[in-house]
């Protein structure tokens, strides 16, 4: 940790990594509570893995159609496919009531396999693909930081405008519809925002492990506080600690920063669950339902 702080002024990548972590924490806090509240944890996982296809396509195009790579980089490629997957799920849910689990699994695996396939067909070692799959917080560029700011601004604006609609929809779909909220539209917007958050957070821990950051800070916060506003606040703070502290602690060791963040997120959540169980026993009550 001391090593990290000592090197911070000299190594610009430590600063961009720190900023990327904090910007991601904001994304966690803004969208995580809805992902948990709307019960779309697995949907988000599927969107993340489907997005790998877009990353692979961008890398493939960069090698074989260099002109195309000017407007499609791996981040954009992942974003486009993630948003498309979210819209597909939203339409499927409107039509069938819920997304069939098997179709979700198919989407999940297809994105992954297309991404890997396209990367294999591209000559050279695909460091960009690996960065997207497993995170690359040690080498975040300023351009990526700028993109993260934009994506966070989008999430913040959507929450500021539609928080009440989102919450009403999460709590009781039918009642939200009776209050003049289009369930199909809100559902689609929430899924698209989750897809954007997935790509934001992939910068930190990678698309494969992104689900931990998207949901665990919110789930941890939900154990201790009683209102959604508090969950948003607490989960942002929890995520901010998770995206900075573990990587500082393992700086200079062989442990990868991304793995440290994911393990810390899971550890924090499990510890929170244990504390709740322990507290429940102390006051002679069971855990809350």
């Amino acid at each position: 940790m001391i090593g990290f702080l000592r090197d911070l002024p000299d190594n610009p990548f430590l600063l961009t990594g720190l900023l990327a972590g904090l910007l991601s924490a904001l994304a966690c806090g803004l969208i995580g509570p809805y992902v948990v509240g709307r019960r779309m944890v697995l949907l988000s996982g599927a969107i993340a893995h489907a997005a790998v296809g877009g990353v692979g396509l961008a890398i493939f195009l960069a090698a074989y159609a260099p002109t195309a790579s000017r407007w499609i980089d791996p981040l954009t490629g992942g974003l486009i496919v993630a948003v498309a997957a979210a819209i597909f799920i939203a339409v499927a849910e409107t039509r069938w009531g819920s997304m069939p689990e098997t179709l979700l699994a198919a989407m999940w695996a297809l994105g992954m396999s297309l991404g890997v396939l396209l990367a294999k067909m591209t000559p050279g070692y695909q460091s960009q693909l690996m960065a997207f799959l497993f995170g690359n917080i040690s080498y975040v560029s300023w351009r990526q930081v700028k993109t993260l700011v934009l994506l966070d601004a989008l999430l913040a604006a959507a929450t500021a405008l539609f928080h009440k609609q989102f919450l009403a929809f999460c709590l009781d779909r039918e009642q939200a519809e009776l209050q003049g909220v289009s369930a199909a539209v809100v559902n689609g917007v929430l899924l698209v925002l989750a897809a954007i958050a997935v790509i934001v957070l992939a910068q930190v821990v990678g698309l494969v492990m992104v689900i931990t950051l998207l949901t665990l800070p919110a789930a941890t916060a939900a154990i201790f506080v009683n209102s959604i506003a508090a969950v948003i606040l607490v989960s942002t703070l929890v995520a901010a600690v998770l995206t900075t502290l573990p990587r500082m602690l393992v700086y200079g060791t062989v442990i990868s920063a991304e793995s440290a963040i994911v393990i810390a997120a899971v550890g924090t959540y499990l510890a929170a669950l244990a504390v709740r169980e322990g507290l429940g026993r102390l006051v002679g009550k069971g855990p809350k339902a």
Partner: protein
Amino acid sequence: MNPVVEIEHVWFWYTFPPASQPVLEDISLTVFADDFLGLVGPNGGGKTTLLRLILGLIRPQRGTIRVFGTSPAQVRHRIGYVPQHARVDVAIPATVLDVVLTGRLHRSRWGVCYGRADRLAAENALERVGLKHLAGRPWQSLSGGQRQRALIARALAAESQLLLLDEPTANIDLPSEQTLTDLLHELSRHIPIVLASHDIAFVTTHMKRVACLNRRLTVHRVDELSSDRLREIYGQDVCTIVHRPGCPLFDSGCRQGCRLAGETSSL
């Protein structure tokens, strides 16, 4: 008196084309502005379906429904609806007040928070159902009966111009039922209420008109018959209706509505 709900020759199937029996068959019903209408019938008789049609959540295959003179979907925010089963999903923590406030969504302004007027209306509504002291509690800490009352508060907070209640007494204990009854009586002086229930005694004791629904629908006035003899037997609070031939409940074997009412009330 102005009609609030006009249902004309409505047929409804859950699976269309109609291979099976319709859930609702040629229903015609008018709810007036001063109505306090009970909707009785057996399970599966179509009570909830009829309420959902009035809300515009589903559409009839035949016939027309007009609410406040227009199509239900356009005015559904003016209808307060208390479903039979609380469908509130608290995967993320929400307080009782949070849930009641969602009844203000259509009236509230843009932005993150509900305004002062919305909070006041929600707190007021909780007070009317006797739950003001629980406003800050987590929703999942409420009992079934308390949840039902909180959902009524949500409908009240919306300042609806028509109230639809689906089995509001199903999960409620006797003292709470009395509170609810008083509340409904008071409300019925200002807004029309349609209350679906399988509890015929409850409906005949409190409602002005009763609609019997079992695929088909017939409307009775509660004072059409309440025999003195029944009053002797079951106590004076029990009034009753006599199902005539042609009434769907008569056809399904309930010839003596009085007996049913008596049985329920003697419990």
